[in-house]
């Protein structure tokens, strides 16, 4: 094994070993919090197949680590809301424009206009007033609902995981409380680490693949990072409570690992509610995309902003993988991880199928983001998965102690990055130094071959809630 692979031997109640994919430098961070303990705990869950995985950007989460991947046998295995996360389908979409940095002479005005157009932060509501039946349709149809309503193009959902509509979604499995939280939030960015960023393609590592993804040096891209908002968070809480009641938690090493058998009524119901929340997240980004396009048209009548791809970070999916030499359908839970399928998989949009699926790894505020391509190697090593971001190393409290808002503003100004934020005080939480080095994360992914480098994106303007 390479220096980027750390095996945690099977011990105690672990059913399988743990594997941490990280360089020695990243492993030092990972060792400091509860990540390794959580990798071991996940390895104790019934029906887990082969290994409990942590990726280069992993850090302590709830029950499962963030940056964790585990696969379960559909007959004997379990599903846990903790394996998906509270922000169901927290995800990233990349738009490729036909603009370059030269077009951004009035960067400030354009960024401010986008900030006003796309509701972000706390308390800024959706521009839409949804009826109950419309919300039902969104939960069932995701991006495809938005496109039908005129908020986008067919190409948009064809370039989204699962065509922007996860099958099996059941709106009836989503509680009234979850609906009440989400109803006024469709088409909003939210707060925390969610963002909208204008970027420039600074460097291409793989010309051939970049061309297939329609990316070229000097081009402007727009990255959107957000999830299923309050609706998804409530779905997670609702099912954690229900699973506690039906299946208990006293036998578990951590209460957040509460789960239900995949085959059980409750397990199936959670999966159909999760799919509905994921569809809400997809539709959310489609509306944001639509408003970005409309807004950019004021400045550039001939602007194009094509969806490169839209990837899920927090999700469970039935996928076919090689298990002990046989192709088998298993349930893969990715929590803070990106699917990274190599060439040929039927899940990949047709125009990308020969090269592999696009993977986006956003950096922290003020640092580069990366485009990678999925690989066969990822399918061998990590159930077709790679990292999802930089991963935090510093608490918000510590970040506040170390930096002032003025310092953060200065760091961004020195790099010529414009910032529009709802709360200037809040941006300290997201200080670049609060995160691991994203350059190191993608280097390790590339070196392991679980996601290969395609392009590097430089932030030009950042919008945060």
């Amino acid at each position: 094994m390479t220096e980027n692979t750390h095996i945690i031997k099977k011990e105690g109640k672990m059913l399988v070993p743990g594997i941490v994919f990280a360089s020695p430098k990243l492993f030092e961070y990972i060792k400091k919090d509860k990540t390794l303990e959580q990798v071991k705990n996940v390895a104790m869950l019934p029906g887990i197949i082969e290994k409990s995985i942590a990726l280069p950007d992993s850090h302590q989460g709830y029950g499962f680590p963030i940056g964790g991947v585990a696969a379960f046998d559909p007959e004997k295995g379990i599903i846990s809301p903790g394996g998906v996360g509270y922000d169901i389908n927290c995800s990233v979409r990349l738009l490729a424009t036909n603009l370059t940095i030269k077009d951004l002479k009035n960067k400030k005005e354009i960024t401010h206009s986008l900030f006003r157009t796309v509701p972000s932060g706390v308390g800024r509501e959706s521009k839409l007033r949804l009826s109950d039946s419309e919300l039902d349709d969104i939960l069932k149809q995701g991006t495809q609902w938005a496109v039908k309503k005129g908020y986008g193009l067919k190409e948009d959902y064809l370039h989204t995981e699962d065509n922007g509509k996860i099958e099996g979604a059941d709106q009836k499995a989503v509680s009234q409380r979850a609906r009440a939280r989400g109803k006024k939030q469709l088409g909003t960015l939210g707060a925390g680490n969610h963002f909208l960023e204008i970027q420039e393609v600074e460097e291409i590592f793989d010309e051939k693949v970049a061309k297939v993804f329609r990316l070229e040096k000097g081009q402007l891209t727009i990255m959107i990072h957000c999830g299923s908002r309050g609706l998804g968070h409530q779905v997670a809480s609702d099912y954690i409570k229900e699973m506690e009641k039906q299946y208990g938690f006293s036998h578990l090493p951590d209460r957040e690992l509460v789960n239900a058998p995949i085959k059980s009524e409750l397990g199936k119901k959670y999966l159909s509610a999760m799919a509905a929340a994921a569809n809400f997240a997809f539709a959310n980004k489609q509306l944001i995309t639509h408003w970005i396009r409309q807004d950019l048209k004021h400045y550039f009548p001939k602007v194009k902003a094509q969806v490169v791809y839209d990837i899920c970070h927090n999700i469970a999916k039935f996928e076919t993988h090689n298990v002990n030499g046989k192709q088998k359908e298993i349930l893969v839970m990715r929590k803070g991880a990106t699917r990274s399928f190599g060439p040929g998989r039927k899940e990949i949009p047709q125009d990308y199928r020969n090269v592999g699926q696009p993977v986006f790894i956003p950096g922290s505020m003020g640092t580069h983001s990366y485009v990678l391509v999925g690989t066969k190697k990822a399918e061998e090593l990590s159930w077709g998965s790679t990292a999802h971001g930089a991963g935090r190393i510093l608490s918000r409290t510590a970040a506040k102690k170390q930096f002032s808002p003025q310092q953060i503003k200065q760091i961004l100004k020195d790099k010529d990055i414009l910032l529009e934020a709802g709360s200037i005080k809040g941006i300290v939480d997201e200080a670049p130094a609060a995160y691991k080095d994203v350059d190191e994360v993608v280097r390790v992914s590339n070196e392991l071959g679980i996601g290969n480098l395609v392009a590097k994106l430089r932030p030009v303007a950042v919008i945060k809630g």
Partner: protein
Amino acid sequence: MKYTFLPHTADIKFKAYGKTLNQAFENAALAISKILAKENKVKTNITKDIELEGIDQKSLFYNFLEEIIFLFDAEHFIVSKASIKITKYKLTAKLKGDNASNYQGLDHIKAATYAEMHIKKTQKGWEVQAVVDV
């Protein structure tokens, strides 16, 4: 001291104290209010009566935190004060607060969690601890 914030890599961890369990929960509500309101001083213009139930003490605490988060998202209600009565695994509370849209620069909480949660009796009374996902 009513509550205190502790370091946590990705989210927010807090402890709240009280002479009684009721008071510890009341102070936990103040900690949540501080996370949401940040520097704002939230008025007590609106009152909400809530009733909750859990399967044990921890789930009662989880459900209480979750209710405050729910009210913020679904009804734009931001809490500033709570008076609470707990009987075993049941709780009734009078929450006072205001409409969140009257304030600027608020923060958001995604969810309550069981991570590192504890509820314990101490020499001085009660101490509760929780991590919220932000």
